[in-house]
């Protein structure tokens, strides 16, 4: 699967434009090149992205997509030049053009040479690839002593997503300067990819991130997208898995690590291009040594060392900002990682206490633990030590540790290993329910008094399905999965052989999926894309 051309790509790229006329959003994916300039009524020149500001030249620059990568190209003839992330783009030599690659969150500005003294006709363009539904808005910080971002009704910027704490982050004005601090949230607050510890003095163009929500500091206001969670939820519920938005995307050219002797490099995987949609159950299959665990550890962000390419979850680059998203991702490794001399009940209780918000009462934690035990059919052994459990029960305890924490993306490495056929089916059914049912358990996050106030919000928040990616070996229940990803080993390197629904897989290989293993062992080159 080589790099796709523009027409095939839906990157979700858009340009948020901010000038004296207000905020506009330009969806970039509909064409490959966009001209940027000033609208001139006399010459009747109308650029694709037009401004009325006099400091913008008639032909100021272009936004172009080449092989899926967006670039900004500054016109050397424009009068005032352009800033990219606070740095003026250098003028190229005559006749040359210097494209600037754009990444999610990049800010382009047309303004005075000194950004500390901005022009009132200045123009700001925010490049974003986040596929969200909502309206862009600004929140003024002027004449505000301090303000909060969070789920609580008293917050000036109120968010509905469950990963927000009641009061998540605080911005305080002190003598004309603005200081950001995290209010001890579970998911953390990040500025330009760095976690906020203590207080952080905000500088213009700082990007404040809370998981996949971003707020851009513009000196005296915040620019952010007011997400319409209800619409996002409605889309999720009404669409079939294949039409849901992509949440996890991997474009891995290669992953290389040191070889066993430490003297050279060994390539583990190559050309892995995967898209995983929200609320789907995905099976990761492959022949022995095809790199299933390697791919899994790239997709969940646990091991991205030596990767060339990109892995994004909800538009956020996990290679750069994994910490920011780690609260949303749960990983269940193949090895049984738990305390041998704990009972499942104790193990889940500890996991719940350390993973869930502190505000949950003892009773709520107890209920959560009880339900996890019930879901995993561990009632009969809840008081037994983990080391005394059967292999299948140990696997379920391993899953339960992350299950109790209610993550958004759950990555399981061979949960079916060592399970008897009926337990396998049971575990797959649990996974399917988690992905397809609409997360009934999350109501617990709401405080009693909050419930009445945020009834509508709860409806939305409690209906998010989980995205579950799992390496499995037994394909007898493969039709329970929405998507199948198959890897094959070619010349000792793991390659992508197929990605699609189980029906499409049967069609692609021309045999049943369990027989496709033999085909991939025999002639992997035939199927590698």
């Amino acid at each position, binding site marked *: 699967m080589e790099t796709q051309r523009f027409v095939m790509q839906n990157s979700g790229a858009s340009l948020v434009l901010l000038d004296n006329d207000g905020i506009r959003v330009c969806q970039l994916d509909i064409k490959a090149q966009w001209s940027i300039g000033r609208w001139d009524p006399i010459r009747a020149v109308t650029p694709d992205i037009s401004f009325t500001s006099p400091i913008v030249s008639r032909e100021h620059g272009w936004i172009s997509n080449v092989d899926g990568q967006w670039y900004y190209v500054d016109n050397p003839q424009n009068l005032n030049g352009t800033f990219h992330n606070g740095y003026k783009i250098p003028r190229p030599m005559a006749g040359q053009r210097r494209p600037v690659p754009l990444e999610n969150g990049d800010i382009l500005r047309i303004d005075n040479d000194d950004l500390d003294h901005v022009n009132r006709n200045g123009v700001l363009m925010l490049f974003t690839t986040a596929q969200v539904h909502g309206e862009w808005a600004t929140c003024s910080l002027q004449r505000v002593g301090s303000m909060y971002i969070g789920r609580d009704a008293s917050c000036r910027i109120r968010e509905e997503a469950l990963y927000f704490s*009641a009061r998540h982050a605080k911005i305080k004005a002190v003598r004309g300067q603005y200081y950001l601090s995290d209010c001890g949230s579970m998911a953390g607050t990040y500025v330009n990819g760095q976690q906020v510890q203590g207080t952080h003095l905000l500088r213009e163009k700082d990007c404040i991130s809370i998981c996949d929500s971003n707020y851009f500091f513009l000196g005296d206001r915040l620019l952010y997208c007011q997400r319409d969670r209800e619409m996002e939820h409605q889309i999720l519920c009404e669409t079939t898995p294949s039409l849901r938005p992509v949440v996890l995307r991997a474009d891995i050219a290669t992953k290389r690590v040191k070889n066993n002797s430490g003297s050279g490099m060994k390539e583990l995987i190559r050309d892995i291009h995967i898209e995983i949609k929200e609320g789907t159950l995905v099976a990761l299959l492959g022949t022995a040594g095809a790199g299933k665990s390697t791919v899994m550890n790239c997709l969940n962000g646990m091991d991205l060392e030596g990767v060339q390419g990109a892995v994004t979850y909800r538009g956020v680059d996990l290679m750069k900002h994994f910490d920011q998203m780690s609260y949303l991702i749960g990983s269940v490794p193949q090895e049984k990682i738990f305390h041998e001399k704990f009972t499942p009940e104790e193990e889940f209780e500890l996991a719940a206490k350390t993973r869930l918000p502190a505000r949950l009462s003892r009773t709520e934690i107890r209920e959560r633990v009880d339900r996890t035990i019930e879901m995993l059919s561990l009632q009969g052994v809840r008081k037994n030590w983990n080391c005394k459990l059967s292999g299948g029960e140990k696997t379920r305890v391993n899953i339960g540790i992350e299950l109790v924490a209610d993550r958004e993306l759950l990555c399981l490495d061979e949960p079916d290993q060592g399970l008897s056929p009926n337990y396998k089916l049971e575990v797959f059914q649990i996974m399917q329910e988690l992905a397809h049912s609409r997360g009934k358990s999350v109501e617990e996050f709401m405080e009693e008094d909050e419930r009445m106030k945020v009834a509508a919000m709860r409806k939305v928040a409690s209906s998010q399905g989980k995205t579950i990616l799992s390496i499995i070996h037994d394909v007898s229940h493969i039709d329970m999965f929405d998507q199948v990803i198959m890897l094959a080993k070619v010349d000792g390197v793991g390659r992508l052989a197929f990605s699609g629904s189980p029906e499409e897989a049967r069609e692609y290989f021309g045999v049943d999926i369990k027989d496709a293993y033999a085909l991939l062992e025999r002639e992997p080159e035939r199927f590698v894309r």
Partner: protein
Amino acid sequence: MKGYAVNRISFLRELMLRIDEGWRVLRRERRNLIISLLFPVIAAAVTVWIAGENMFVNCESTKSACFILVCAAIWGGLFNSIQTVVKERKMIKRDYVSGAMRIGCYTASRAFLQLLLCAFQAAILCMSFYGVKWAYENELPEMGLIFDDAMLEYYITVFLVMYAADALGLMISCFVRSEQLASQLSPYILIVQLLFSGVLFAMEGAAQSVSALMLSRWGMEALGSISNLNELPLRLQEEFPYIPHEADEAFAYTAEHLWQVWLILLVFVIVPLVAGNILLHGVKKDSRG
């Protein structure tokens, strides 16, 4: 934040949870716990048996007894902790990466539990002094250099040596990635500690500087000072009383010297714990999950 519960559990709450977790692990690993508690009993018995007869009677026997105690304290401390963190490394990575663990809480909880264990083991080890009195009716030093009770000073010294060795073990356990490697490293550490203690060989030149980095040397200095080794007669002096006993300034019988050595031992406790805490953050880079 008045009126609003913050969402992430506080450092203190997490610390309590981790202490509870570690305590349950320690308590339930019964075989390991029994070995840990039997070790100082055996070490104390060996001290009484091998070097007890002339302990506090002549300088050489007292020095030998002190050396056995220091070695036992280092050995015990190191073996208490060297597997503690490394055996839970995968669990630490999973919890730390998913935001369910503060490394600081984890290391502090394990350091606290090891402190309790060392405090108990040091008390057992110090029973050897009473063993000497009981078995051979030797006179024990009564007055200490700092406190009125020399036994308290012996206890503090043995505890500090043992806990410093324990902290060193924790640091190694935080750094290495396999239990096997941790086990392989420990004998080397012990040998180096013994060689550079200044008891087996005279330390001169560069060896003197290396010996300054050894717990064994400072442990010996403290125990030697409390025992007032410089004032105890040499074995030869029993037959030839005119032979002079040259005082060794390492065993200076002053409160200042003992304070100084205790402070150094405290540094040997703090530095590895802080370093271990920093090193354990590297768990994130472990290749497999």
